[in-house]
């Protein structure tokens, strides 16, 4: 009887020990497998974001190169032709004066075209006057197109962001505005910028068709979401968050960018 009691206790303890150890091994295998999966998903997402950013930048470069080729290239070619004509008709003063007038006009247009290309590459007002003034300049350009009206509401302030972050915030804002102009059928945009609780908040609300965070995630997952992935990538770079709302009866659709800043001394 004592022996059977002994055996029972031994069996119970050994079974208990083995059972617990099997549980421990299962937990550890789960942890290892799960962490690999999470990291793999994170890596895939980062690769997608990087690829989207590179593709968008390449497209932008192509566009700028095309503009320079079509505008500046054409103008300089005509300028060259004019100079060649002038050199063949050095005795004809009237013709030379006419050609000079034309050449001044062509040079002016070339300078404007080059300035436009430079603005696209790196807006000069951004480094000199900051994000808000450059955003104001962008809004003026958009208003100049007559297709859409944009109103900017903000206090005059100097942002506590590094130049790099201001540039990324500007590009992010520009992409968001481009998306609204291209896809929402809006005729009016209200851009509000404010500082609150050590955070900057930019809200772009409009009277067009909005989009939700869920729809953005779905589009990003497909090939169509290149611009959206680029926005997400830029937001991550500067530690900002982007929130989309399709709006409701009482509220217009909007997209909101929030960025926490640190005061630099």
């Amino acid at each position: 009887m004592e022996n059977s009691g002994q055996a029972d206790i031994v069996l119970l303890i050994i079974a208990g020990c083995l059972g617990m150890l099997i549980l421990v091994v299962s937990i550890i295998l789960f942890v290892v497998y799960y962490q690999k999966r999470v990291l793999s998903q994170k890596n895939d997402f980062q690769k997608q974001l990087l690829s989207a950013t590179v593709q968008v930048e390449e497209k932008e470069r192509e566009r700028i190169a095309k503009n320079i080729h079509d505008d500046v290239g054409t103008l300089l070619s005509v300028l060259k032709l004019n100079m060649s004509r002038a050199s063949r008709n050095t005795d004809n003063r009237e013709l030379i004066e006419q050609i000079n007038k034309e050449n001044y006009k062509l040079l002016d247009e070339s300078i404007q075209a080059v300035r436009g290309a430079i603005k696209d590459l790196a807006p000069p007002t951004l480094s000199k006057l900051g994000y808000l003034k450059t955003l104001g300049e962008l809004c003026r350009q958009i208003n100049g197109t007559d297709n859409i009206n944009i109103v900017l509401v903000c206090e005059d302030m100097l942002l506590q962001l590094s130049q790099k972050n201001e540039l990324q915030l500007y590009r992010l804002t520009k992409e968001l505005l481009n998306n609204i102009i291209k896809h929402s059928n809006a005729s009016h945009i209200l851009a509000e910028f404010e500082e609150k609780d050590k955070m900057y908040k930019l809200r772009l609300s409009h009277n067009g068709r909005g989009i939700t965070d869920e729809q953005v995630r779905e589009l990003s997952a497909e090939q169509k979401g290149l611009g959206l992935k680029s926005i997400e990538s830029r937001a991550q770079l500067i530690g900002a968050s982007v929130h989309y709302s399709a709006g409701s009866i009482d509220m217009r659709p909007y997209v909101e960018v929030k960025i926490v800043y640190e005061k630099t001394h």
Partner: protein
Amino acid sequence: MPSTYRYFLYLSYLSCFLTGIPIALGLIRIKHFSVSTKLILLLMIISIVTEISIFALHKLHISNLFVARLFDAVEFILLSFFFERIFSETKKKFSHALSSVVKVFMIIFIGVAFFDLYTNGFNSMDNISLTTACILLMIYSIIAFFHLIQNPVFDNILRAPLFWFNTGILAYFSGNLFLFIFSNYIEDHFPRLSPALWGIHSLLNITFYILISIGFWKTAARQI
């Protein structure tokens, strides 16, 4: 002494001897250790001192259970501080909650330890407080694994020292849980079984020391 029991005794000696490996590794790499890793090293040093004291007292035919009782309390407190440091690295909203969890667990353990002392006496196995410590430390370990998943520092989790420390702690305390629950019952009713079952404890000890050694080895120039 039956020959089989001799093997369990040798296993105990081996377990004591193997404590030297993590200690040696730890002392060699101590300059790379964070505060939490140093707590584990301290635990190893206290372990070997305890093991030697227990053997010495056993040879002198003096009851050594009070040494084990003291060691168990110190072990739980050191590991609680270890896990508190780990949890303090989580996001703010969780670190406050987890820090409170550690404080509550320490209060629970102290309460249970006094109850155990009152129930079992100073010169008996503290199976109630040990069982409680096992369960609480298992909970700490599972939370720490969750923390590791949420805050991956390395591409491969097997390179993280915390993974190895945590695996050692979880394996040791969960493997010993049933042993500690029935330890006093076995001493009272089946004393002949005692060496065999403590042999299982020695095996789990050896596993624990090996895993801690791997953790120290992985620490090298990295912090947890």
